[in-house]
Structures are given as structure tokens and as C-alpha cells.
């Protein structure tokens, strides 16, 4: 029975991999482009999902770290002429350091106050991105960011970049899965269920929350650097508070405790607005309605609803047999 299940799972994984590998060649360029964005948003969303689903923290500052990653890549490659990898590293180090320094004080807050604290961070960062035009180019932005180049293989088309972005996304999903499954993950879940009891068992709430915030910032920065190399041009419009809210929607829609849910959430926010835009001016209202419908009808996201649906099917199958 177990080997049958294993075989079936392996088959599913093989089919999914085949579809994943064939997809960019089967779809038009604009869809391949959206699939790249889905990968980038998955990475950014994973961090917020860890905070929301496992620490109960609403992070409205992800656009800040996304912006730091993007500007670091732009500045290092365009202004300094350094190799692309330096942009990724500089962005990651600055984002993680900022998350640590800001996180220690603001993560003492809880609930709405903490959400407002992260919102303030996003608003301040967004203003600084605009003001510090010597660094960010202000509203004019920084253009001409080179395409990534892997040992001479230039990732200059969406169908090529797709593979790179998604391999990074899978690696991040693997890391997030490891974290949830680890000793830290165990303590995170304990903290979410009862912080009072967790403290009595020597779980250091403050340090754990700060460290997850730092991991979230790392994912945000990585996504930002990938974004910069994809679009070749970064400007302040991409890193506003609006973007932070969009990122928060990813785990809210997909399901914060589920890693596949983050991919579902990322697909939702990239594809649905695009599909609805064919309907003309009403598309933003329709997108808003779809959001409200998901949040109201599926409080644990699309993935949570799917799990419940499957459980019901199994229960029905069981009672039939």
C-alpha cells in the first residue's frame, strides 16, 4: 500500500515536473513573463507566509526588502559595474541587517500595532527610495540593468529566465519547508498556540520572531534582485506600500501555513488581474470582489479550502465503502 502510494506520488511529481519544464515553450511570451513574476512573488510571499502562518505576524514591509534587493542589484551592476552576484549579496546583507535592527524593537509589539509598525517601515522606506535619488535615481529610476548570465548563457528571454527564477523559488520553498519541520518550526508553532507556556519551556519568543523576520527579509531581497534583472529597470513606483499589501495578499489568499498555498497565492495575484483586464475598466472592482470573496469564504486561503474539500471527498468515499 505504501509503495503504491509512493509510486503514485512519484508519478504526480514526474507529471508536474514535465508540465513545469514544457510550460514556457507552450505559452505565449506574455504568459511566460507572468510565470516569471509568479516565481518572484512566490519567493517574496514565502517569507510573509512564514511570519503570518507560523508566528501570527502581519508583515506590511516586504516591499522595503524587495526594494533593497532590487536597488542593490541595480546599483552594483549599473553604477559600479560589478558582477550580478554582488547585487544579490549586498541586497541580502543590507536587508537582513535592517530586519534585525528594526525587528528587535518593533517585534515587541503584537497584533494591529505590529502590523502598523511594519506599515510605517514600508512608508518610510518608500519615501526614502524617492528622496535618495543619488542612490535610487528617484522617479527616473535606474535603467539598463543587465540580464543575468550563467557561465556565458544569457537569461535574456522570459522562457530562459523562468527556469532560473523557479529553481531559486523551489530552493526557497525547500528551505521554508525545512524550517517549518525543524526545531525552530516546532518552537514557532508552540509560540503561536500559547506564548505563555512556550516561554515557560524556555522558548525565546523575541529572538525567534526576529530571526524569522530576518529570513523573510532575505527572501524579499532575493525576489527584488531577481525582479531587477528581469525588468532591467527599477524605480520607486515598484516599491510602494501598495506593493507591500499585494505581497501580504499572497499568503492570505493561498493559505499562510501551506507552502504550495504561497504558489497558488502568487498565481492569483499575477494572473487574475491580467485575465480581468480584458473586461475593461471594471477589472479592478472585479479583482477587489474576488479578493473579498476569497477572504470571507475561505479564511484559511484557497489551499485550506482545497484541503477541506479533499477531506470531505475522502470522508464520503469512506462512508460509501
Amino acid at each position, binding site marked *: 500500500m505504501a509503495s503504491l502510494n509512493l509510486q503514485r506520488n512519484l508519478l504526480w511529481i514526474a507529471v508536474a515536473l514535465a508540465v513545469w519544464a514544457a510550460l514556457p515553450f507552450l505559452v505565449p511570451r506574455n504568459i511566460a513573463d507572468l510565470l516569471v513574476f509568479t516565481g518572484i512573488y512566490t519567493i517574496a510571499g514565502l517569507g510573509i507566509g512564514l511570519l503570518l502562518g507560523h508566528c501570527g505576524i502581519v508583515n506590511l514591509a516586504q516591499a522595503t526588502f524587495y526594494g533593497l534587493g532590487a536597488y542593490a542589484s541595480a546599483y552594483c551592476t549599473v553604477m559600479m559595474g560589478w558582477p550580478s552576484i554582488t547585487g544579490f549579496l549586498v541586497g541580502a546583507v543590507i536587508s537582513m541587517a535592517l530586519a534585525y535592527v528594526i525587528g528587535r524593537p518593533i517585534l515587541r509589539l503584537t497584533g494591529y500595532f505590529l502590523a502598523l509598525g511594519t506599515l510605517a517601515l514600508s512608508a518610510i522606506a518608500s519615501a526614502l527610495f524617492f528622496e535618495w535619488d543619488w542612490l535610487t535615481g528617484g522617479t527616473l529610476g535606474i535603467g539598463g540593468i543587465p540580464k543575468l548570465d550563467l557561465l556565458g548563457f544569457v537569461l535574456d528571454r522570459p522562457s530562459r529566465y523562468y527556469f532560473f527564477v523557479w529553481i531559486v523559488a523551489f530552493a526557497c520553498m525547500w*528551505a*521554508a519547508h*525545512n*524550517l517549518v*519541520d*525543524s*526545531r*525552530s*518550526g*516546532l*518552537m514557532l*508553532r*508552540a509560540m*503561536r*498556540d*500559547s506564548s*505563555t*507556556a*512556550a*516561554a*515557560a*519551556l*524556555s*522558548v*525565546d519568543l523575541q529572538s525567534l520572531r526576529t*530571526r*524569522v523576520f*530576518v*529570513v523573510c527579509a532575505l527572501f524579499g531581497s532575493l525576489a527584488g534582485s531577481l525582479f531587477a534583472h528581469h525588468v532591467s529597470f527599477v524605480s520607486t513606483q515598484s516599491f510602494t506600500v501598495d506593493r507591500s499589501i499585494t505581497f501580504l495578499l499572497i499568503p492570505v489568499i493561498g493559505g499562510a501555513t501551506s507552502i504550495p498555498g504561497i504558489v497558488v497565492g502568487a498565481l492569483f495575484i499575477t494572473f487574475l488581474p491580467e485575465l480581468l483586464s480584458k473586461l475593461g475598466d471594471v477589472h479592478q472592482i472585479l479583482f477587489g470582489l474576488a479578493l473579498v470573496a476569497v477572504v470571507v469564504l475561505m479564511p484559511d486561503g484557497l489551499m485550506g479550502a482545497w484541503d477541506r474539500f479533499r477531506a470531505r471527498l475522502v470522508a464520503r468515499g469512506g462512508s460509501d465503502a
Partner: protein
Amino acid sequence: MPDSAPLLALREIGHSFGGLSVLRSVTFDVPEGGIVGLIGPNGSGKTTLFNIISGYIHPLAGTIAYRGRSLARESIQKRGLTGLVRTFQTPQVFEKMTVLENIMVGCAKLTRTTMLQDLLRTPAARGQMREIYRRAEAACERFQLGGLRDLPAASLTAGQRRILEIARAVVGEPKLLLLDEPSSGLNAQEIDNLREWIVRLNEQGITVLLVSHDMGLMTVARTVHTLYFGEIIASGDMAAIQRDPKVREVYLGV
């Protein structure tokens, strides 16, 4: 044991909430290897004293020394790491986690991993997790929770939650176990089991400080202190306490 230093020494502990004095000059020792009881009617300050010892509240007056060192600057977590572990009046189990996972949290503090090791699932991180699992599994059997190990803690009865909470505390290898009203919500049979557990854990070298207003359970304690409106009015073994005229007057109502 009068010649050795006590494991826990409370000196002149005083506390008040908004001008209402809840503890006044509370002084007593918990000798290493002993079982010390603290009784008193509702509102006598027992839980406040527990919160002070475990670090949830900082006392306004007095000192606490644990193994000869002041606890004044130690956080709740630090106190736990040095072997001072408490349970709660209402059992605080992690409801969405299974029984086994609850116990795993209890022994997580015996191992160390960095978040990077956890993210990358390094051999060290996997080894630590296996160790936690092994200890928790053994504790599950020891506390006769084996049949419940994969159930979410939310589905347990009050008595099972109590045992789970104690198992979770004990698996972290405490030196001093603080039990806050462990018999509340339990039936007579469960209280008997609990008494046996306390004696057995004590025989294994765990010092116990027990708060309760259950006189029957208190018979396990070698020394009992009676708290009344924030003051200790009598100390001694249970028989002496039950004979004490002051205790009879204010606590037993006779």
C-alpha cells in the same frame, strides 16, 4: 538538609497590584530534593508568588535566590534553562499540536541549532531533531500517553492535559518543578495518580514546589506553608498545619 544551601530561597518577598498589597514579607526555603507545599484560600497570593518565582512578574520587594544566585535579572527563559520549570493553574497545552509534539517542545531547550542549520536541514539539525523525537517518545511511554501521542492536545480531557503538561515540563530535565494547582479539575482517581507521579518524580531527584488548596494532595509535601492575604501564617508538616489554630480559623473555617 539544614546544613546545605537551599535550592530556592525567598526572602521578604513583597508585591502589590495598584496599591493593593498581595504579598508581604514572604520568606521560606525550598531544600534540594524536597517537596514543599503552599496552601491558602483563593486570593491569598499563591499564583502571584508562582509568577514571581518563574519570572512572569518582578517583585516590588525582596530577593529570590536559586542555587545561591539571585534571579532578579533572569528572564523566564533563562530560569527555565537553569532547571526551574513551572506548570499553570489552567493547563497550557499547545492545542493544535499533537501530544508528542507538545512534549518535543519541552525538550527542545536541551539542544541547540541555528536558524541557518534549520533552513538547510544540515546533518546537525537533523541529529538534534532525532534526539528531541527520541526523548519525547520515551517520555510519552513513561507517562502512559503513548496511545494519545498523535492526537491534537485540544482533544484531551482535563486530567490528560494535566499529565501532558507535567510530562512536557519533566522531559526538559528540571531541577525544581513548580506545580500550580495541579489537582484542579481532576477526579479522585486522577488526583491519586497525580500524587503518585509527584512522589515518583521527587524520588528521581526533582525538587517540587506545589501550590494547591487540595489538602489531600498536600499530604505529599514534607513542609507546608500557609499563605493568607499575602502573609505566611503557619509552616510545618501537614499534620501540624491541620492542627494549627490560626490555620483552622482562617482557612478551614473552624
